[in-house]
């Protein structure tokens, strides 16, 4: 095959088909994925009944600070991965904001709560639901993200899939946190990461298959 002829074929195809812009597709997927997770959340567990009083509690609000920081960090890093040649922008460092915040929260909690209460705070009321709901609520956002990222040219499809998993899990965890009665950073630090890890692993496995090019 002559390269000149291939270029002719590519030009003919470009004239008939406009490319799907990755940036637009990515943010559409974030929005659609978040809406899907919101709908799934509202139709299943929903926010806790005392949500109006809970928003006055520092521990309750802090859960959202952590999960939203994780979502923003993952989105920034994912955008970075879609621009392999970028010389500026958030690197993997952005992902560390949420774990650092959570570690600080744990530190404060350990200082203000007597050690006799620590085990009860860690175990909480419903750790199993937490581990199950984060992956379940993350499924649709992860699907939307992987769909959008098919247009990307990642050096490592598995790594890109894994970070998409972190973002999807962070979106899911933000909704789940509105339901969960366990507000202690000790609970969040033990059980939320398990749910996030499950989605991250699934994202890596799916990414390795679906994002190859």
């Amino acid at each position, binding site marked *: 095959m002559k390269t000149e002829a291939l270029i002719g074929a590519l*030009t003919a195809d*470009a004239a008939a088909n406009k490319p799907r812009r990755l940036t637009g597709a990515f943010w559409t997927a974030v929005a659609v994925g978040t809406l899907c997770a919101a709908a799934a959340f509202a139709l299943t567990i929903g926010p806790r009944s005392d949500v109006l009083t809970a928003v006055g509690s520092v521990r309750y609000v802090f859960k959202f600070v952590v999960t939203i920081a994780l979502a923003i960090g993952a989105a920034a890093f994912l955008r970075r991965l879609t621009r392999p040649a970028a010389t500026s922008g958030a690197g993997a460092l952005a992902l560390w904001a949420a774990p650092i915040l959570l570690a600080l929260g744990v530190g404060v909690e350990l200082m203000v709560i007597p050690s006799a209460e620590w085990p009860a705070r860690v175990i909480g009321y419903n750790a199993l639901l937490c581990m199950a709901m984060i992956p379940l609520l993350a499924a649709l956002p992860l699907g939307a993200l992987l769909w959008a990222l098919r247009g990307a*040219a990642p050096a490592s499809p598995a790594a890109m899939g894994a970070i998409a998993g972190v973002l999807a899990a962070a979106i899911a965890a933000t909704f789940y946190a509105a339901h969960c009665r366990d507000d202690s950073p000790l609970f969040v630090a033990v059980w939320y990461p398990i749910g996030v890890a499950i989605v991250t692993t699934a994202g890596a496995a799916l990414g390795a298959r679906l994002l190859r090019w």
Partner: protein
Amino acid sequence: MRHQERDWASWMKAAHAGDAASYRLLLEALTPFLRAVVRRRGASLGLDAADVEDVVQETLLAIHLKRGSWDPRQPVGPWVAAIARNKVIDAMRRRGRRINVPIEDFLETLPAPEPEGELSSREAERLIDVLKGRQHEVVKSITIDGEDIRGTAERLQMSEGAVRVALHRGLAALSAAYRSFRE
């Protein structure tokens, strides 16, 4: 280098807006650049001219299919280099070697002088034969026989729209064939 980047970026922007002539200019300008990169990386592997051309063509195809991932705020050169780097690594893996390829090699390579005569690849024709039915006929007609859309439509007695659809799907299938070929 800067001058070249300005041309590439303006052609790419025009191409995204649907200007096919600019797109052709861009691909034609990128080809010698890619050829030089692949030739230099491939020298140690004993790639001959047809092997080099195979990798160049696979890279052009990848650039085409992934062109939506170019962000207008980013320069074209490093974006192309990142795609080329991945394709060169794929080609090397195909030959059973693991080699670390620094991206700097791609950014600093200057286009090689064009060799005399037309360059052809070897693997690509075999891969096109993997395609089926109308996709096979259309892709073969346009990429190997060098016909245009209208000529292909007349010869195969298809509508031009159907030829365009078959070409579009066929190019994606060709890229998938490269992928399965390397595994």
